């Protein structure tokens, strides 16, 4: 029973972690909370739905397509809605982000209607694996495996490549990175691209797991993932992963303990508690003022 809940929690938490990484990466580079990130996740879920149900593509190909769609979307949002405001106050960029978020969910509602839709039954063959007392579905294995693969790849890019080093330099000190010859605008685009690709993957996985894709699914998922990012320490990649997993596991545990009507409140209760004790989040460093 315990093992079962733990695995359910990890599967859910992996998805939160995927979305949370986008918030934290963008914040780390431009100190902006990308409020449209939840909607990028929603668009990813719809792109995957379209690829599987209309184009009848394999779920893995659908995943790749959703990621590409969201990369383009994320990069476009940055260039259209945030870049022109980079030298203005944080508040203007934040308002612009909220505007994009409302625009995207309204557009999705117009295009796909208000009712939740499901992925095709046969898009992924679900069977149960018995592990001691626990029943694990192959779908959970898929979610955990894909999330882990994406997070390991991200870690590799950030810590082992020239591009990743430029990302870290830009996130630490924008001006000095430029003095090293880093094209800061390009690094910002890459950051939005990576974050959006992870959100898209999260969208497809959630779509398959809960079998419900709707125009407003980005709101709550986005808020919870944002809570996960802050919980782990905004700006910290391992923090976002840890925050996501922690949130997923506690949410499932809360539901199992009989608090299912408080399901969505659990994330925010934990957030408040942790921030009271450690305002920078679990793995957050001292917040540096950007110049």
């Amino acid at each position: 029973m315990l093992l079962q809940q733990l695995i359910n929690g990890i599967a859910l938490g992996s998805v939160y972690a995927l979305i949370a990484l986008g918030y934290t990466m963008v914040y780390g580079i431009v100190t902006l909370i990308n409020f449209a990130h939840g909607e990028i996740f929603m668009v990813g879920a719809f792109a995957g739905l379209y690829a599987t149900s209309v184009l009848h593509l394999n779920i893995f190909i659908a995943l790749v397509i959703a990621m590409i769609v969201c990369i383009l979307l994320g990069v476009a949002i940055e260039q259209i809605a945030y870049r022109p405001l980079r030298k203005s106050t944080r508040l203007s960029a934040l308002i612009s982000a909220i505007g994009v978020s409302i625009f995207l969910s309204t557009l999705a509602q117009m295009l796909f209607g208000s009712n939740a839709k499901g992925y095709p039954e046969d898009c992924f063959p679900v069977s149960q694996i018995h592990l001691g007392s626990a029943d694990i579905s192959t779908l959970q294995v898929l979610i955990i495996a894909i999330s882990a693969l994406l997070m390991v790849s991200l870690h590799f890019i950030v810590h082992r490549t020239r591009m990743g080093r430029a990302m870290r330099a830009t996130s630490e000190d924008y001006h000095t990175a430029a003095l090293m010859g880093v094209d800061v605008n390009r690094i910002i685009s890459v950051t939005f691209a990576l974050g959006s690709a992870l959100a898209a993957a999260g969208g497809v996985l959630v779509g398959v797991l809960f079998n419900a894709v709707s125009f407003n699914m980005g709101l709550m998922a986005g808020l919870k993932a944002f809570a996960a990012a802050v919980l782990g320490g905004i700006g910290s990649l391992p923090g976002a992963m840890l925050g996501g997993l922690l949130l997923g596991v506690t949410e499932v545990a809360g539901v199992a303990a009989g608090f299912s009507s408080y399901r969505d409140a659990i994330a925010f209760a934990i957030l408040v508690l942790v921030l009271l004790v450690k305002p920078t989040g679990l793995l957050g460093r001292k917040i540096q003022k950007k110049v």
Partner: protein
Amino acid sequence: MLTLDNLYVNYGAIRALKGFSCTVNQGEIVALIGANGAGKSTILNSISGLVPLAAGKITFLGDTISGIAPHRIVRKGISQVPEGRRVFATMTVQENLEMGGYIRTDSKGLRDDIERIFIRFPRLAERKQQLSSTLSGGEQQMLAIGRALMSRPTLLLLDEPSMGLAPMLVEQIFTIIREINAGGMTILLVEQNASMALSIASRAYVLESGNSVLHGRSADLAIDPNVRSAYLGT
């Protein structure tokens, strides 16, 4: 080699440069001296493309470089050691040097250059896997200079390399600057420590609130009564 022609820079309502002009010739060390807020860093940052010009023109090796993005200016051969060193605190000494060579892709040449920098600065070699935030001020300055050399510039901009260092370290840093220049590097040096700056520069410009009030050969400026009373404290 470098010509600044009638530069104007504003930060909002603050007028930081008001028609500053100067030239730097191949192989020279030229010093910019002046009090806090005179506009010295603004001059270096406008050369590097970090601050936009309200008016004026910058030419380097025959090309106009004003209005070009900072990352392109590095590729033209101009490297800056910024004020306050600005080493990447979350990276190791080695990674900071690799960042300095970001524009280059010749991995063999990069490795050789890092080795050369470690020979010039043995204290960095001993600490190459250490996070740069754990270095002392003098070591961070050495790292910032080494990092700037990694792009193989033809013009090096140094912003107050002596800032906050003990006298012995200041001597050491200036000896290094002299050696780098002896190797053929052209240097534009910003300093508040006017006596040190005049001792190594061939020429200097004295800045007051956004413009040059005096310029000439360092040897002449060092005996100028106005410079002596205002900047040399004698």
